[in-house]
C-alpha cells in the first residue's frame, strides 16, 4: 500500500510539473525541456540548461510556487549539474510544441523552416535572443526564425 501511495504521489507531482511553463519559452513545460530529472514524493531533481541561463532561478521559483499551490510544500527541490543537460532530453512532444511556436527544434540534421518547412535556410547569427537559440532565416518564405541550438 505504501509503495502504491508513493507511486500515486510521484505521478501527481509529475502532473503538477507538466503544467509549469519555461519562463522564456512558455509553450513548453519544464518537463518537456528535460529540466526535471527525477521525482520522488520527497524530492524534485532539476538541472540547469545553460551554465549562465538567467532563467535557472526563475525555473526553481516557478516549480516551488506550483508545488506549494498543489499542497506539496514538503517536496524539496535540488539542482544537479552532472551529467550535463543536453537538448537530446527535450521530449518529442516538446519538439512539436517548439515547432508550432515558430522555433526550429534542436536537431542533428540540417534545420527546416518552422513556418513553411523548407530546408532552404541559412544562419544569420550564432546567438539569438537567449543563450539557447540562434537566429536563422528561411530563403523560401523569407521569414526569420529562432533555432534551438543543439547542445
Amino acid at each position, binding site marked *: 500500500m505504501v509503495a502504491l501511495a508513493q507511486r500515486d504521489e510521484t505521478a501527481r507531482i509529475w502532473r503538477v510539473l507538466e503544467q509549469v511553463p519555461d519562463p522564456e519559452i512558455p509553450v513548453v513545460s519544464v518537463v518537456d525541456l528535460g529540466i526535471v530529472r527525477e521525482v520522488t514524493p520527497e524530492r524534485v531533481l532539476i538541472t540547469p540548461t545553460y*551554465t*549562465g541561463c538567467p532563467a535557472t532561478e526563475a525555473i526553481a521559483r516557478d516549480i*516551488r510556487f506550483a508545488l506549494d499551490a498543489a499542497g506539496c510544500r514538503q517536496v*524539496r*527541490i535540488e539542482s*544537479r*549539474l552532472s551529467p550535463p543537460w543536453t537538448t537530446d532530453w527535450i521530449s518529442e512532444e516538446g519538439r512539436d510544441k517548439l515547432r508550432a511556436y515558430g522555433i526550429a527544434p534542436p536537431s542533428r540534421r540540417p534545420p527546416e523552416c518552422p513556418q513553411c518547412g523548407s530546408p532552404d535556410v541559412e544562419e544569420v*547569427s*550564432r*546567438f539569438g535572443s537567449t543563450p539557447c537559440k540562434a537566429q536563422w532565416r528561411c530563403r523560401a518564405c523569407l521569414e526569420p526564425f529562432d533555432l534551438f541550438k543543439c547542445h
Partner: protein
Amino acid sequence: MASLPPIDLPAGATGEGAFDAPGADDPHRSVRFDYLLRLGDDALILGQRLSEWCGHAPSVEVDLSLANIGLDLIGQATHFLGRAGAVEGEGRDGDALAFRRDVLDFRNCLLVEQPNGDFARTMARQFLFSTWQELLFEHLTASADAAIAAVAAKAVKEVAYHRELASEWVIRLGDGTDDSRRRMIDGLDWTWRFVPELFEMDAIAARAAECGIGADVANFRGDYDRRVRAVLAEATLEPPPGQRPILGGRRGHHSEHLGHLLAAMQFLPRTYPDATW
C-alpha cells in the same frame, strides 16, 4: 536574488545536491580554494569585460553574441566562486568573493582583464582565451573535484561555441578588408604576450595537477598551438613575432586595467551593501 522566495532545504543541505563541500580535514583545501579562484576569476573578469559591449557592438547580432558569451562566463564564475566559498568555509559566498575582494586578491590571468579595444581586439582576446579554456575544460572533466568536473563537462560545450564564433571572426576580419585585417593584426599583437601565462605552471598549478584537482596545461600546449595556427592560417595571418611574455595575474600582480573594471563592477554592492533587487 533576494526577491525570490526561499527554497525549502533540509538542514545542512546546500542545494547543490551532489557536491557537499569537503570538510575541514580536506588535505587539499588550500590548493582547491586557490585553483577554484583562478577558474572563477578568469570567467568573471572576461564576462564583465564582454558585458561592456552591451549596447555598443557593431550590430545587434554581435551585441547578442557578446552578451550571451558573457552570460555563459558569469554562469561559470557563479559555480566556481560559489564552490570556492564553500571550500574555504569562512562564510564567504560567490557574491562576497566577486564583489568584496580587492584587486590584489584576484587570481585571473592578465589576458581576460585587457581592455576591449576595438571589436577586432576583443575577438582576438576571445579566440586566444576560448581556445585555451575549451582544452582546459576537456581535461578538467576528469578532475578529482566532483564540482569542477561537473561544471567543466557542462561548460565545455558552451565554450566550444565561443571558440567557434571567435575563430570565425578572426578569419573574417583577418582575411577581410585592408582595414579589418590591420585591426585584427593589431588585436593579436596586443593580446599575444599574455598567452604564455595561460601555460604557466607555478607552485599552485603544479600542486593542483598533482592531486588531480587541476589540469597539467603542458599536456595541451601542442594542441593549443596547432589550433591557433590553423585558424590564423585560414585568416591568412602570421603568428605575431616573438614578444616578451607578461606574467603575474595568478599572483595578484595585475595591470592597471583590472582596478578600473572592478570599480565599475563592485561599485553598487559596496556602496549599498544591503541593496536587493
